[in-house]
């Protein structure tokens, strides 16, 4: 992939093939899991979408005024777009819905402006814990399916931080604490917690970053957690047990936080070797749909496909080749060429017709450059059809052929 313009890339055929192979694998896997694909338009109406976008995301959007004077935005977040779509057409559905997408999103950052993403959404599930477990297991299995052996799945519950920061005694520190958790700034957390008068809460905030690790390590330290947060921790433990029962190794992080503001409860992130940051993540966003006038629980996850290509490229990158290159002499009636090509194609053989009349040796060289497995060279018009040579490009063995 080459940077053609800052933040966007163009892809050569080999790279497109690599991307398609990975995407097809993901698509088939999600279909086998009962999810169906939806398509979201690239262009969205800004007024409709902005109600559900947070400040940080709004800053990154690409917007413009269309010829009717309305403001359009290039889709910055597919979860929000799907929420808009489902909320607008909810009467026709039987819930829960299990959707997936493979698409580009547009956000201006220092690194990119187009991000290739895939993800799933579970909308309107009655048993929310089941949906949470399914998502965590699905993201893990998806990465396994496409070739990652070591996957670090980390789960948390955003409610823990939300409930903690809603305490009246933290009123003056709420903003700075949230920022510190978001920036993973343990030094600031320590300094702020020293200003908190309630020693139990102060100690808990100091200990919170350390409350991460295997489920056994974390849940055995429940005594360090203030009692009013126990229900949220227990809820996470319940989900963790179910994920474990599904055979998925995972880790707990009680201070896990997502910078996208619509998350409400269970959240998770995945990391793989070879990448310096999270490859994907998701969670629950029960309030998102109500922003579009439809009260409906929902959850989902997204995976950054560009990051996946970067790591798995070597496994999937293959040279593009064709099965047969069909060359012909000047004077061969074209209908014979089309008919011969069609007969190959009927057998699912990939055929490229050469658009230039070449001498045999030149045609052989050309077919090697094209990585064609075989060269079919029509050299002569016979009374009943055409004749020529079939050449194995690899060893140059040739065989006479006639086509009637």
């Amino acid at each position, binding site marked *: 992939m080459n940077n053609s313009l800052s933040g966007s890339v163009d892809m050569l055929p080999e790279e497109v093939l690599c991307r398609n192979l990975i995407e097809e694998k993901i698509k088939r896997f999600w279909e086998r899991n009962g999810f169906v694909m939806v398509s979201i338009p690239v262009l969205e109406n800004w007024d409709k979408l902005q109600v559900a976008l947070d400040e940080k995301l709004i800053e990154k959007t690409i917007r413009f005024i269309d010829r009717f004077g309305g403001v359009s935005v290039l889709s910055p977040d597919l979860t929000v777009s799907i929420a808009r779509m489902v909320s607008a057409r909810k009467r026709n559905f039987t819930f829960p819905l299990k959707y997936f997408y493979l698409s580009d999103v547009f956000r201006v950052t220092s690194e990119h402006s187009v991000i290739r993403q895939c993800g799933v959404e579970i909308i309107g599930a009655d048993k929310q814990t089941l949906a949470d477990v399914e998502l965590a297991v699905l993201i893990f299995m998806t990465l396994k399916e496409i070739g990652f052996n070591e996957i670090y799945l980390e789960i948390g519950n955003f409610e823990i931080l939300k409930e903690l920061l809603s305490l009246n005694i933290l009123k003056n520190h709420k903003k700075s604490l949230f920022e510190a958790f978001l920036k993973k700034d343990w*030094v600031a957390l320590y300094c702020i917690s020293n200003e908190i008068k309630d020693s139990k809460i102060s100690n808990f905030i100091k200990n919170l970053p350390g409350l991460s690790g295997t489920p056994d390590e974390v849940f055995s330290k429940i005594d360090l957690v203030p009692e009013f947060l126990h229900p949220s921790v227990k809820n996470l433990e319940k989900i963790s047990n179910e994920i474990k029962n599904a055979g998925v190794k995972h880790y707990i992080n009680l201070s896990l936080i997502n910078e996208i503001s619509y998350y409400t409860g269970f959240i998770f992130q995945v990391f793989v*070797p070879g*990448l310096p940051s999270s490859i994907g993540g998701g969670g629950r966003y029960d309030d998102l749909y109500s922003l579009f006038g439809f009260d409906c629980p929902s959850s989902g996850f997204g995976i950054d496909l560009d990051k996946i290509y970067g790591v798995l490229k070597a496994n999937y990158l293959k040279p593009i080749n064709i099965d047969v290159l069909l060359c012909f002499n000047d004077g061969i009636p074209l209908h014979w060429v089309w008919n011969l090509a069609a007969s190959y194609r009927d057998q699912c053989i990939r055929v490229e017709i050469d658009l230039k009349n070449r001498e045999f040796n030149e045609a052989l060289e050309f077919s090697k450059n094209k990585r064609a497995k075989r060269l079919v060279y029509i050299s002569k018009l016979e009374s009943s059809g055409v004749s020529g040579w079939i050449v194995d490009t690899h060893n140059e063995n040739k065989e006479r052929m006639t086509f009637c």
Partner: protein
Amino acid sequence: MLKIAVPKGVLFDPSLKLLKNCGYKIPSDFGRKLLIEDSNQQLSLIIVRPFDMPLYVEEGVVDVAFIGKDVIEETSMSCFEILDLGYGQCRLSVAVPGFSPYRSVEDFHSFIKVGSKYQNLSKKFFIEKGIQVRIFPLGGSVELSPIVGLSDAIIDLVSTGNTLKANNLIEIETILFSTSRLVVNDAKYRLKRKEINEFILRVKEVLDDIY
């Protein structure tokens, strides 16, 4: 093996001393090498310029780094900021020449010129104050710019204040206090958890003994 980035400059010696106090066998003389290993092959050290460090950390080239808070804030780097290492104490301040009429930033006229290596923090500082300034990005010898008339003020790191004094500059406002920090790459903190936590513990024990 843990990969650690150590900054060139004033934080270099105290960072090596800290590692030695943690029990790592760091060679005392490694010439001009920028990549060294401790003799027990537990650590691989990469010596880089302070402002290049965020890139090394964020891209996961190193697992851990010792880095000034000023650089973390200037570059808005994304990482775990685990420990305040205590050394490298300094402050990012606004300074003006002794002959300047300004004695506080509130006195600044619109569109005055400020020279700094810290463009982002400078910009943020003046935006929050509601003062329009032109920031000149400078790579070094920032103190020179108001003396020769390139700028009206500077924003730069001050530790003892001796350089400012020597160049007849007066510190009028502090933007940020900085010390050296131990930071960890986002993904590495998960994928090399055990190794990194052991390292943090060793550093913590040494710091607890000092402070």
